[in-house]
């Protein structure tokens, strides 16, 4: 293929992908324009029309979403649950993964395979019993639901970190031990820094899961007292009576905007983390 023909093909591809990108962003854009309309001008067949001077509502929908629907409280719960769960998963699972990779025993092998097994099992298999176990142990508040997430997220984390551990040279740890480090110090000052790339991948994957998770918190938490963001959105849709569309759409935008900001800021890590996680997995 000559260079000029290749350039021509490339520019065609750029145009095609450009059009596709616009189509990709459009659904989010549609929610944005509707969230700026007045309540009575949001109709089923008018979702594609832009707001006009008469129907433009400014930020009133956003204000009522934040004020009336308890959006900020839900945001707080979601943030706390995600951060505490991911932190617990990264800390405890990397510790166990190191143990499982370095100590060969029946227990290690059994636990490793149980973790792998738990990744394939669908949530419906355990949802009822998990909710009742959580109730019995009083693990049904946003403050300690991370224990459940640690248990259910351990499979993926242990699997990925143990896989990575195999490529970490044993000699460095041995040298540290000979120099007088105990296992705890060896782990925190030698092993954990070397695990950083895989911890980033695991952290991103688990954060995406916990932040967007709907069914587990719905079954475990008391919906009257605590609603995470996905629960809030489903709750307002499912509740009887008229759904206020404007504040609803504003609520969706308020959910998406932080995700997009975090994504654009950490884009490189997220994409690299996903790719690395998949290759290891």
């Amino acid at each position, binding site marked *: 293929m000559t260079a000029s023909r290749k350039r021509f093909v490339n520019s065609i591809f750029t145009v095609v992908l450009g059009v596709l990108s616009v189509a990709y962003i459009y659904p989010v854009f549609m*929610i944005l324009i509707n969230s700026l309309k007045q309540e009575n001008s949001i109709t089923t067949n008018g979702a594609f029309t832009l707001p006009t001077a008469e129907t433009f509502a400014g930020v009133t929908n956003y204000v009522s979403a934040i004020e009336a629907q308890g959006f900020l409280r839900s945001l707080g719960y979601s943030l706390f649950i995600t951060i505490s769960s991911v932190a617990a998963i990264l800390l405890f699972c990397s510790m166990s993964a190191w143990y499982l990779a370095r100590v060969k025993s029946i227990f290690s092998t059994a636990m490793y395979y149980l973790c792998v097994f738990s990744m394939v099992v669908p949530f419906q298999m355990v949802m009822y019993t998990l909710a009742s176990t959580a109730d019995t142990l009083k693990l049904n508040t946003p403050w300690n639901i991370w224990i459940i997430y640690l248990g259910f997220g351990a499979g993926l984390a242990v699997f990925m970190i143990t896989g990575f551990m195999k490529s970490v040279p044993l000699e460095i740890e041995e040298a540290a031990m000979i120099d007088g480090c105990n296992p705890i110090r060896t782990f925190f000052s030698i092993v954990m820094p070397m695990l950083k790339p895989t911890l980033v991948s695991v952290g991103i994957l688990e954060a995406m899961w916990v932040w967007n998770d709907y069914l587990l918190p719905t079954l475990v938490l008391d919906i009257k007292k605590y609603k995470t963001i996905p629960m809030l959105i489903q709750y307002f849709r499912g509740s009887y009576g008229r759904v206020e569309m404007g504040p609803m759409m504003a609520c969706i935008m308020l959910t998406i905007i932080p995700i997009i900001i975090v994504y*654009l800021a950490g*884009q490189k890590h997220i994409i690299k983390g996903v790719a690395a996680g998949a290759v290891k997995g």
Partner: protein
Amino acid sequence: MEKAIKRYAPIFVLPTFLAFTIGFIVPFFQGLYLSFCQFTTAKNAKFIGFDNYIRVFQDETFLDSFGFTVMFAIVSILSINIIAFALAMILTRDNLKGTNVFRTVFFMPNLIGGIVLGYIWQILLNCVLSIVGEPLLALNSTAGYWGMIILMCWQQIGYMMIIYIAGIQNVPEALVEAAAIDGATSWQTLTKVKLPMVMPSITICVFLTLTNSFKLFDQNLALTAGEPRHATEMLALNIYNTFYARAGAQWKGLGQAKAVVFCILVIVISLIQFRATHSKEVQQ
């Protein structure tokens, strides 16, 4: 060294092990046991043997949702993987402008949760349907089916594309050049050199799309909620409805038995798929 670490087992393994026991091991085995029981709460379970399992296979809604899930899985696995691979091939071309922007855009929907995605597409599809004069999603199972396919494609193509890009970039330059020197056409290079080399990525992507399609719940609940009359209800939602949408002593045991059948199904299908594509991988 092993001995030294072993003495610290309580610190290193115990927290995860306890949480894993609470979050997975206990619920799993209790769930297995409850599938043989009649119960309304976990405490009043009465052992009734295989009755629940017999009823699972007499339950038409379950068999219907199984058929729907299989049809959904086949079409969505094929379309997601083919489109994602094609995009990855285009985005790994030399000197293509805007690669990073496209990659960022295509990956974005993946970060939005299933409930929100389902709601966005419900508004969009209902608008399209009302403009062309078709029944809305709540009354239109064909639109519900294709709506879920489109939604899944929109959400998952970017993720799979990233994995394929990593796979394609790992193909050694020397192999492609050697093929070109030997006179291979670009189609031959693709099918005889690149495809076998990215087989590990294909294994993973097919595995992920397969399990995601079978386990799909949030998107199903938010987009169609199984409407009209359970026609677009997938297995996970069917199990959920058996548990929580009906009152009465006979339902929870049935739901748990369905869940066990579902679990075995997912495990068997993933194992078969993994064997099948794994065996086509080549060693470098």
